[in-house]
């Protein structure tokens, strides 16, 4: 009887384990890691998913790293002239000589003067391979302008030449000049963004925090600056830099000019973010608890949109690099002996160059690469900094 009663009961599983009412609220280790991660860590994780941005970041890193050891990477110095090889066409690196593996080598360049067109023509003399030397001593230079050295990553054989990207009108190696130019072109963008970042932060912060009349005036000023066509204004400002200034002063002058027009976008972003975040509950709470404005801005407001600001600052670097390139191309930006990519492109100013010496246009390639890289990198940063995506 008792067994029958037992079978009548619906069978269901009852766990013997003691009941834990908080089990639903407990997090798995991954969840915990996610919820406890700082904002920067979250950004980093999100950023890593954006593959193009990561690759661009690596490219940027490599390019900036190369400026540290430019002297070693470049086969020649910035101003080394090879008067026998003026407008030499690019030499190519070969691996096989007459079907036999020799390792990387170049052939000797033979110059001849075409008596009809009066052009210098260069041909490879394929009789003898001239192997490249690696980690060798070549053109002596002063490392960072201080230490005397002659160590190079790669140099041609004694007496031979290595013009991978040809030479210019004074017989200077274009590749070396591009590598040296990176120092100026890349730093001008960074330096400029530091200046405009500071300006934007301070001016936008003032407008956003004080509001009212101050805000109105600053807004109008920004509007006026924005209604100028950028390039002509840059042109005008750099044209009035005194001719007597030394090239290094001109470099800082141009950077300042570029930064002077770029801060407006950042200032606007800071202002609108400040205005929006000021009304947030956590801000009111902080104020009620007696926090000073300095602490509210520094501790609660700034971290809230710093990541966003950094992303938009990254996106405005390419504009500055392009601006410097354009100014120098027109001949009113940096001037020799300071060499940037724009100064190099200044040599490729007329159509003859395109037709006769197309390799002089090659400095445009790193410009394109760096601008693409900054754009993709900045896009990735912006997506990563956006908490709602």
């Amino acid at each position, binding site marked *: 009887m008792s067994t029958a009663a037992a079978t009548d009961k619906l069978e269901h599983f009852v766990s013997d384990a003691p009941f834990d009412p908080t089990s639903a609220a407990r997090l798995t280790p991954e969840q915990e890691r996610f919820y406890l991660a700082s904002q920067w860590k979250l950004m980093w994780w999100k950023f890593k998913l954006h593959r193009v941005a990561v690759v661009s970041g690596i490219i940027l890193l490599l390019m900036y790293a190369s400026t540290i050891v430019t002297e070693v990477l470049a086969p020649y110095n910035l101003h080394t002239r090879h008067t026998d090889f003026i407008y030499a066409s690019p030499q190519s690196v070969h691996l096989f000589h007459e079907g036999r593996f020799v390792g990387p080598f170049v052939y000797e360049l033979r110059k001849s003067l075409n008596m009809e067109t009066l052009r210098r023509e260069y041909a490879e003399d394929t009789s003898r391979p001239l192997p490249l030397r690696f980690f060798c001593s070549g053109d002596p230079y002063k490392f960072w302008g201080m230490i005397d050295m002659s160590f190079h990553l790669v140099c041609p054989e004694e007496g031979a030449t290595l013009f991978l990207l040809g030479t210019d009108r004074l017989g200077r190696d274009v590749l070396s000049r591009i590598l040296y130019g990176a120092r100026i072109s890349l730093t001008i963008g960074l330096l400029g963004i530091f200046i405009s970042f500071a300006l934007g932060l301070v001016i936008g912060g003032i407008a956003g925090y004080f509001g009212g009349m101050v805000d109105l005036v600053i807004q*109008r*000023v920004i*509007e*006026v600056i*924005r*209604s*100028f*066509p*950028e*390039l*002509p*204004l840059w*042109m*005008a*400002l750099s*044209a*009035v830099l*005194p001719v007597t200034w030394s090239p290094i002063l001109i470099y800082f002058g141009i950077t300042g000019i570029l930064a002077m027009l770029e801060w407006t976008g950042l200032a606007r972003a800071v202002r609108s973010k400040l205005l929006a975040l000021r009304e947030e509950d956590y801000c009111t709470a902080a104020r009620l608890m007696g926090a000073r404005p300095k602490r509210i801005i520094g501790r609660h407001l700034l971290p809230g949109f710093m990541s966003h600001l950094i992303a938009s600052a990254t996106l405005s670097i*390419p504009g500055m690099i*392009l601006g410097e*390139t*354009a100014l120098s*191309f*027109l*001949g*009113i930006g940096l001037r020799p002996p300071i060499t940037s990519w724009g100064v190099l*492109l200044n040599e*490729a*100013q*007329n*159509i003859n*160059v*395109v*037709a006769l010496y197309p390799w002089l*246009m090659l400095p*445009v390639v790193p*410009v*394109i690469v760096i*601008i*693409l890289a900054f*754009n*993709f990198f900045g896009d990735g940063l912006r997506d990563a900094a956006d908490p709602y995506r």
Partner: protein
Amino acid sequence: MLRYIVHRVLLMIPTLIAISIIIFVIIQLPPGNYLESYIAELQAQGESVDPQKIAFLREYYGLDKPMAEQYLHWVWGMLRGDFGYSFEFNLPVTKVVGDRMLLTMLVSATTILFTWAVAFPIGIYSATHQYSWGDYGLSFIGFLGIAVPNFMLALVMMYLANVYFGTSIGGLMGPEFIGKPWSWAKFVSVLEHIWIPVIVIGTHSTAGMIRRLRANLLDELQKQYVVTARAKGLPPRKVLFKYPLRMALNFFISDIGSILPHVISGAEITAVVLSLPTAGPMLLNALKSQDMYLAGSFLMFLALMIVIGVLISDLALVALDPRIRLQGGVAR
């Protein structure tokens, strides 16, 4: 509406005054005035300096008057259509400038039309085919358009046009038409030449516009009314054309404000490379030789073009977009 227009035009005045002050400051920035260096240069060349002419120029610019008075003098001159006197050419600026302003406007306007014609279909395609290969490809081309400096593009295009189409190098018209009065043949010649600068100047702003249009349209396509329309069974094409596209059209007008400065900036440097008879090359020359009054007039003109362009786009937007209510208080 009328009240809005008047209000908007009045709002322009302080902006223009601020712009003119900035430009005047730039004009005054080079150490010494042009007149002094001009005299010094003439004397260095051993030429006699005509004191009458110097006196005339000094009088003309009021160079010995205080700064504020000089500024008022300059502005008042511009208001009467007198843009000053070019020291380099020894002519009034208006004479030197000639057609250049007109051609600058022509090139800029054509470029904007080109930007619209290209950005519209591509933007729509990219938005409706989000994350497809076409979208990625077009976006990449757009990025390239942003990254390639337009002066380099101008050089290469000029070379290619000469090699493959036999278009004469540089300029906005065939050499035989320069300085001739406008005629049909001259107009055709201008059309034959204008496409190179238009494409070169347009690439940058087109790329930017495609990206913005795509983002805008994507936002629009996710709105509830689109979902509703689709749920009701409206064919996809009609869903797209009936509402979201019309929004996109408004965007085209409102975006003028952001592309116009780029178009005009790009036009300057492209014009220098292609030696177009527009404001660009002359502005550069004026700046290089520190002929600041000429440069100032050009800058003022370019800024004025942008301000007026933005004004027109604002007014057109009000006329076209019924959601923009001018007089508050009227509910719905």
